[in-house]
């Protein structure tokens, strides 16, 4: 690279388009009113956006978040408008993303780990009360039926109802019924209204689900109940069988007379222990951690997953390193020809996207139709991915395929950087080949690759895509209280607890995340200390 020429080209004679572009950029960066104007406009936009966000946030009483948003925007203005503060100007964009999506996300994980946030506990108490009342709606026995026409205005559906007395009213989702007088009548039933389009039968069928889900309040008092329709032509009054007593904080089932109280578990609970779901989110302290270590149905699978995670991570590093080192030694001979071609071909598994490799291997290891059983083992019936122990073996094998090229590359690099004179000196002193390898090459090599081995361990500790794509964590352990299998590692367990299946337990999943973090952090700190010691020795 011709360093001396570059500034010249930049200032006097921009020759190539790249130079010209760079020169323009530099011109802009160097000052000028265009830049100042752009800067002001951009910062103004950021401020405006921040104020808008803060307003929206304050409407839902999230004051802390609102204040933070405004403060960050002001900080940006302060940093970029003033002279100096150079480091901040360069660091701020990256740091903002880092803070929001990594630091805050980490802290928030910690917070969620101490709550009961899950499928049944996903909201505030007020919205839990609303949801309960809505879900407990029942048709009022012997109540009159309303003749119904469904009308549409600008894509929003409304109920046009004629009650048994012949009064016509209109209303929609969250819009209580209102009297109307100018409806078009047909045989005692309102069938149209100026400004609205009447839905035909075909339209009603097409929007069947939406219409069946609609509930139109009879009046602005929620205790009066709502109108719902099963068929799009008749509506019935529904009321909730649950009554919420705001003063006492209790839910009463009007049908059975059972009183559900708020006993501090995040859900209305009756005296006999039955709970109304959904509940709401509360702080549960160390409950999630306690569950992980003490609840029988979770502890067993959790400990098993924990052990397998370590075994998997250690074995992966070890097998890949062993094969990579062996190949590096084999190919580290100057007399050998066409090494280059071997090298390119052997790198291919590393270049191939990992998740695809796992999916392809999953196909090849299929018990009935897979390539391994049908072709290589001549029609054998080996349960590669469905037997607990074979599945573990298969995972290690596929990981070896994925990971050995990387180890081969770094071992080759490290071997080539070991100076020849050390080896020669050893040989002159009468060391055998094995001794040279054992006492000189290997220690020097380990010093060089130890940090990479540690990061490889950390990577495999959280090697989600291999496990999830190859076995999906299976074969499933049916006795477990959480959805885990024999080959699940901690990170796939977190994913499954939080996002797979019909119920999600965000609190428990976050608690597992925190446990993983503590483990990885402890190991990394110890390991890096030890490699430092190793470096000092040499």
């Amino acid at each position, binding site marked *: *690279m011709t360093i001396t020429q570059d*500034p010249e080209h930049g200032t006097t004679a921009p020759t190539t388009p790249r130079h010209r572009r*760079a*020169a323009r950029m*530099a011109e802009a*960066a*160097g000052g000028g009113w265009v830049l100042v104007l752009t800067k002001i406009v951009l910062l103004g936009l950021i401020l405006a956006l921040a104020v808008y*966000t803060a307003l929206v946030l304050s409407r839902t009483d999230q004051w802390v978040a609102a204040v933070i948003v405004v403060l960050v925007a002001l900080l940006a203005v302060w940093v970029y408008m003033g002279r100096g503060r*150079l*480091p901040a100007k*360069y*660091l701020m964009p*990256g*740091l903002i*993303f*880092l803070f929001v999506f*990594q*630091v805050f*996300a*980490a802290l*928030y994980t910690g*917070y969620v780990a101490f709550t009961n946030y899950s499928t049944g506990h996903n909201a505030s108490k007020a919205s839990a009360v609303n949801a309960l009342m809505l879900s407990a709606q029942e048709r009022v026995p012997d109540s009159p039926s309303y003749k119904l026409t469904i009308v549409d205005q600008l894509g929003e559906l409304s109920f046009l109802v004629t009650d048994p007395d012949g009064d016509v009213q209109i209303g929609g989702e969250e819009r209580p019924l209102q009297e109307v007088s100018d409806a078009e009548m047909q045989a005692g039933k309102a069938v149209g209204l100026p400004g609205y389009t009447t839905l035909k039968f075909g339209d009603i069928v097409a929007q069947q689900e939406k219409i069946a889900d609609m509930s139109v309040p009879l009046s602005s008092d929620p205790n009066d109940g709502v109108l719902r329709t099963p068929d799009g032509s008749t509506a019935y009054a529904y009321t909730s069988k649950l009554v919420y007593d705001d003063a006492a904080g209790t839910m009463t089932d009007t049908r059975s007379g059972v009183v559900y109280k708020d006993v501090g578990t995040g859900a209305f609970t009756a005296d006999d222990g039955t709970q109304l779901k959904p509940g709401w989110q509360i702080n549960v302290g160390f409950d999630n951690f306690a569950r992980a270590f003490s609840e029988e149905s979770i502890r067993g699978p959790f400990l098993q997953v924990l052990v397998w995670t370590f075994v998997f991570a250690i074995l992966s590093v070890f097998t890949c390193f062993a094969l990579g080192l062996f190949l590096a030694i084999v190919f*580290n*001979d100057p*007399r*050998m020809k066409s*090494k280059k071609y*071997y090298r390119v071909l*052997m*790198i*291919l598994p590393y*270049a191939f*996207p*990992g998740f*695809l*490799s796992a*999916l*392809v291997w999953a196909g*090849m290891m299929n018990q009935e*139709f897979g390539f391994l059983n*049908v072709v290589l083992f001549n029609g054998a019936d080996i349960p590669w991915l469905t037997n607990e122990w074979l599945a573990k073996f298969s995972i290690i094998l596929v990981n070896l395929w994925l990971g050995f*090229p990387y180890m081969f*590359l770094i071992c080759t690099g490290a071997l080539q950087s070991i100076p020849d004179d050390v*080896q020669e000196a050893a040989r002159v002193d009468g060391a*055998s*080949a*094995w001794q040279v*390898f054992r006492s000189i090459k290997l220690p020097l090599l380990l010093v060089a*690759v130890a*940090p*990479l081995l540690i990061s490889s361990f950390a990577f495999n500790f959280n090697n*989600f895509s291999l496990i*999830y794509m190859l076995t999906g964590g299976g074969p499933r352990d049916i006795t477990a209280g959480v959805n885990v299998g024999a080959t699940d590692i901690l*990170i796939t367990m977190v994913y499954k607890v*939080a*996002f797979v299946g019909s119920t999600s337990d*965000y609190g428990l999943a976050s608690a597992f*995340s925190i446990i993983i*973090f503590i483990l990885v*952090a402890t190991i990394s700190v110890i390991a890096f200390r030890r490699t430092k010691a190793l470096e000092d020795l040499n």
Partner: protein
Amino acid sequence: MSTTQTTAPSTSAIVTGAGTGAGVRGEGKEPRRPFGKYFRETGWRHLVGVVATVFALFPLLYVISASLNPGGTLLTANSLFSSFDFGSYVELFQNPSQPYGAWFMNTLVIGLITSALTVLLGALAAYSFSRMRFKGRRFTLTALLVVQMFPQMLAMVAIFLLMVTISDIFPAIGLNTQIGLIMVYLGGALGANTYLMYGFFNTVPASIDEAAKIDGAGHARIFFTIILRLVAPILAVVGLLSFIGTCSEFVLASVILIDPDKQTLAVGLYRFVSDEFSKNWSVFAAGAVLAAILPVALFLALQKYIVGGLTAGSVK
């Protein structure tokens, strides 16, 4: 296999090879060794190489062969290269329930934008760490390293809940949007990348900056026109690693992107293959081959830089 072969002479060949081989190799007219000697010295290495290459290649050949066998199931894919037909590649783009074209473009767009911005943010940070001395510099550098101990993947629940909240305020950048996913990825833009770049920035002598400063160049001009060009190799490495990493990322993409036509290849292909595992195997294989071509080509083209970059981080 030669009966005289033991492990001892072969390892000694490695050791002595380094010293004596260099001179012989350039001449190219080595006297022909007897086969036994040849095998003991280098022949067996080729044997190992061939075995390793077969191990490395056969899954790749298998998937290519499966993709050329249209209408094939898992079972018919086993007869390698029995047919040669690009039908599956056409079929791949014709099924609306499995919008492969959209997945491909999404992956490309998300990958390119993420990697470009990652390089920019990382380079800005590395420049300030390498060239400026300010209060809290050491602390920030250490903090970046410590933060990496809590990878974003671990925070998937929190990120999901955060995106749900953002959706309430700005639906355009919240859950189920690609901008949202890119923003999440950018949260990991500093960290490991900054360290990699920081090391490389330090190898560019500061006297170049000073000379430019004396000539009247401002900090931005020095950064954009001089430094960035001198550190181009590391920019390529970081950009490429980030691109490849983003393209195969599954966890966050699957949590944030919900609609099938917004998903990336990793999420889409996984759902596709787990739905109808053995039935549409050749279509999946075609999808896998197409998805892999770009990363593999990029990797091979920039192999030299990547290997250098991978080891530069820690092998000193």
